[in-house]
């Protein structure tokens, strides 16, 4: 499932924006009902901003406030600033083995 949404309100003065791809797995995917989201965010957005934005969307309240996050397939702190083309994955508690 792929959803496209924008964190930029319409009618605002144009601001520079970045495009990120959000991946949801396992319990998070089930809770949000989507496995991938393509998002536009204002330049300078952090992961924290992205989470807060997502949690305001209908059906996405179920995303935890401080999930583990990987940016471009590396675990990353929540204050990581997102760049154009970044892949942001929300990582539920892992259970391999």
């Amino acid at each position, binding site marked *: 499932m792929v959803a496209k949404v924008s964190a930029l309100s319409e009618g605002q003065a144009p601001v520079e924006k970045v495009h990120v791809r959000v*991946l949801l*797995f*396992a*319990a998070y995917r*089930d809770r949000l009902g989507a496995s991938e989201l393509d998002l536009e965010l204002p330049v300078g957005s952090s992961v924290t901003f992205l989470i807060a934005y997502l949690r305001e969307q209908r059906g996405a309240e179920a995303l935890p406030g401080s999930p*583990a*996050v*990987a940016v471009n*397939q*590396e*675990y*990353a*702190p*929540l*204050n990581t600033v997102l760049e154009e083309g970044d892949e942001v*994955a929300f*990582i*539920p*508690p*892992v*259970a*391999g*083995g």
Partner: protein
Amino acid sequence: MDCRITTDSIDAAALANRVRKNSDGAVLLFTGVVRDHDAGRSVVSLKYEAYAEMATEKLREICSAVATQFDIGDIAIVHRIGELSVGEISVAIAVSAPHRDAAYNASREVIERLKREVPIWKRERYADGEDSWVEGTEPQVPEA
């Protein structure tokens, strides 16, 4: 160092054979197997899911780190994803080393790190028809 995610069934014996070198005196093969119970409930199958690219990268990172940390000859990790029945192998870790101490320590380090760090999840299906995600471990994320 053969470290990967697979959708195929795992041939653990072949993995162990591949890591052995003539300079090694110990080969340790750990296999994780789907068992028929968990936390008191009867389990019929497990469905594994991975963030495959990152999980592969993490497995390779663990292999490299462990090979540096311990005096081992070679190491291989294969983790299966998809639907697995009771008795099927979900993960195999093969370590060869000149001496057994390094083999045991490296093998243990790999499985502990795998369970803490690698983005893999599993959903248990129970005999009563219900299913649920298995509670996992919050991965350590670098400090801001």
